[in-house]
């Protein structure tokens, strides 16, 4: 079950600002608290952070909202986070803070752009992630055939993606995270 959290309205409920920019560590911490209150006790498997209508996000706020939320999510056994509504205004800060923590997240840009991995990644992970998004569920052999790798290399990449919670794994098969709910 997925829970979509629209950050722009939640920001205005959380701090007294007429703006939609995610800036300052204090704002980020307050917003993360609100997000955690929203999802605590509920059985959402996937949390969708929707950046639609969010202006600028700075590094400190990205660290508090995205990186720390991912760190918390990684403590749970079967919980996932994905980002939607992401624009050029958001990419750099999120990418950098996640890399700093060794974390990754799947980000769905505004419009029809292809999803991408932000944060810690590698060329193999990026290729495997895109292939799973394009070809859908399958196993290592299917990925290996699709991208021209050995099965072992494909299996390694898929396992890494699953450990980073960028794809879902079950019984030796892998599939993409559910598509984000529309705004």
């Amino acid at each position, binding site marked *: 079950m997925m829970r979509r959290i629209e950050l722009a309205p939640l920001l205005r409920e959380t*701090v*007294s*600002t*007429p*703006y939609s*920019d995610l*800036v*300052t*560590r*204090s*704002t980020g911490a307050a917003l993360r608290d609100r997000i955690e209150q929203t999802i605590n006790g509920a059985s959402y498997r996937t949390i969708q952070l929707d950046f639609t209508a969010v*202006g*600028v996000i*700075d*590094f*400190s706020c990205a*660290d*508090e909202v995205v*990186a*720390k939320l991912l760190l918390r999510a990684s403590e749970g056994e079967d919980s996932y986070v994905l980002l939607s509504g992401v624009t*050029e*205004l958001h990419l*750099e*800060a999120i990418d*950098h*803070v996640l890399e*700093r*923590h060794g974390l990754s997240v799947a980000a769905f840009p505004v419009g029809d752009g292809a999803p991408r991995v932000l944060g810690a990644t590698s060329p193999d992970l990026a290729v495997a992630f895109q292939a799973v998004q394009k070809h859908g569920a399958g196993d290592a052999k299917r990925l290996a055939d699709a991208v021209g790798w050995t099965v072992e290399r494909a299996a390694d990449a898929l396992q890494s993606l699953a450990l980073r919670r960028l794809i879902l794994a079950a019984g030796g098969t892998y599939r993409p995270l559910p598509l984000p709910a529309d705004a």
Partner: protein
Amino acid sequence: MRVIDLPPSLEDKTLDQLAESIAGWPPEPFILDGRAATWANPSGFVALLSLGDALRDASLPRPRFLIPDSPETRSYWARNGFFHHAAETWEVVGKVPNKPFETPTDVLLPITPIRVFDDVNDVVGKIQERAQRILAAEVNLAPQATVRFVMTLSEVCQNIVEHAGASGWVTVQTYNWKKRLGRKVAVIAVSDSGIGFRRSLESTESKKVGERWGDGAAVELALMHNVSRYRDPGRGQGLYHIRSYVTRWQGKMSVRSGTARITIVPAWDDDTLLVEHLPFFPGSQVQIIIPAQEEGSAS
């Protein structure tokens, strides 16, 4: 009562002359004579306001400030809000033009106090439309660089609230540096009256550094090595991001704290990387200069 002359042209370097005249901290009471002043850059304005804050915070008598004689200078300093803010901590002496606040066209962000995090939210929200328009049109910054400019402003203002332990000031302005650089520049100037980098990092870093510990070593750790007093690995990144932005856009950045100044020096400038044993000035002052990008440069 001793009288200290304000340098006729007040900017980041002539601030050292002012600091020398103040002669240590806490200073003997003084009158600041600005009658001969004809110009101040953004760093000069915010540093003077921080000096007033620091004198107040040290419970020293409210100092007198004799305003410039030049009508043009008075008019500009009134329009950009300097006299209005200065009156909070200085006894402003002289006839201040009685004109309504009117932000000069070259000012992206008027002189603005930073006291709490909400002030940073306001600064970022207010500057964006103006920044995107002016930085794109006059400084030829690509949209992505304008976003980074705003992020940089946010991070540098947050440093005041998080680390200084006191209030501060920020202003953003564009200049035509025709003689010096042949281009326009955008300048962010930030100053606070707080504890400075050395005291902020002292408890966690001084023993590690040993004999070299001081204002210069503290600024170097924060600016060049991303060191923060917090253990959280996500901390200490603000100045790092600012530095990387400045470097990428061939900008110049200087950080003065206490008795030291470190400057990120671009190819177009010949400033000194590290200057120590400067006369003490309270708090910390940060100046960021982003020059207009030449056609076809990085975007």
